[in-house]
């Protein structure tokens, strides 16, 4: 059997170049029964190291040990007033209020300004009488059409109201 790999591992072990896994391989190798003669000399070293891991405290150790009881980590209780308890609500209300106010302000400032100047108002027609006559004609026309639908007598608006 070829033990080159183990020899290489051992060489790197002394140089401090082996990983934990490789060291575990070495330990396992030297713990088995038949180790070749030229490597036999390291067997007591590795077996001795393995034995060291089995060293335990005496069982009587715990009997002399003052073992504290289980406990929960202390949680500090801090008294707070009713107003402090409601403070998140106040904050929320304040945020809503501020948002609405700013929203309104923004909306009105971005709207184009309307001109409400009454002095600058001008009629778009020139003859008031002509406009009145035309308006009367239109109302009459609508009235007649409605009467046709409803079956009533027509009402002559022009006779009741004198022209301006």
């Amino acid at each position: 059997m070829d033990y080159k790999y183990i020899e290489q591992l051992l060489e790197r072990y002394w140089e401090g170049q082996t990983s934990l896994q490789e060291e575990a391989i070495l330990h396992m190798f030297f713990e088995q029964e038949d180790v070749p003669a030229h490597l036999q000399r390291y067997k007591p070293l590795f077996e001795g190291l393995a034995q060291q891991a089995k060293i335990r405290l005496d069982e009587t150790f715990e009997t002399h040990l003052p073992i504290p009881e289980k406990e929960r980590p202390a949680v500090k209780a801090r008294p707070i007033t009713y107003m402090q308890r409601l403070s998140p609500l106040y904050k929320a209300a304040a945020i809503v209020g501020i948002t609405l106010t700013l929203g309104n302000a923004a909306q009105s400032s971005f709207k184009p300004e309307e001109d409400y100047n009454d002095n600058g108002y001008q009629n778009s027609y020139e003859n008031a009488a002509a406009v009145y006559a035309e308006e009367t004609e239109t109302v009459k026309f609508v009235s007649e059409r409605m009467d046709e639908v409803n079956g009533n007598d027509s009402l002559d608006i022009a006779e009741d109201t004198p022209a301006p």
Partner: protein
Amino acid sequence: MSVTFRALTRLHNREMKEISFRNDVLPFKDKIFRLALRITMNRAEAEDIVQDTLIRVWNKRNEWSGFSSMEAYCLAVCRNLSLDRISLKENCHATLEDQPDTPDSFTPHDALTRKEQISLVETLLAGLPEVQRSIIQLREIEGKNYREIAEILNLSEEKVKVYLFRARQRIKQAYAKIDGYGL
């Protein structure tokens, strides 16, 4: 949003988890003992150190959430307490009785008993400086990686590698001497 909420829940659960000396501290006692024994080389003192370490770690339980590994923290406390003891003892003049038993001669190819194997390793490691001894203990016996060892010993990983290399070289040389025919 859900991630944040889950993280919060986890944090809350951890904070509220019931902690106990028996479940959270006591399981490390043997590892602490082995490190203390390696440093002080005295069983009775190592037992005292285990007790001091466990109680000290328990008393710091409000700070546990800040530690990445409880085991590493326990071992770091253990080492500091062990070093305190050693320096105290050096001031009080160490006696020969405190040294581990050194067998008269080793012949590694003979089948050694368990006890002899243990004392062989103890003799080899006793010849190393404390840092190298602790590193060999954590690496070879407790199977810790470089990062964990660096955290416990408060060293850089590079330093740990250098010390481990030196320790192995010394063990190799000492072993060759015991072995009788050199390497």
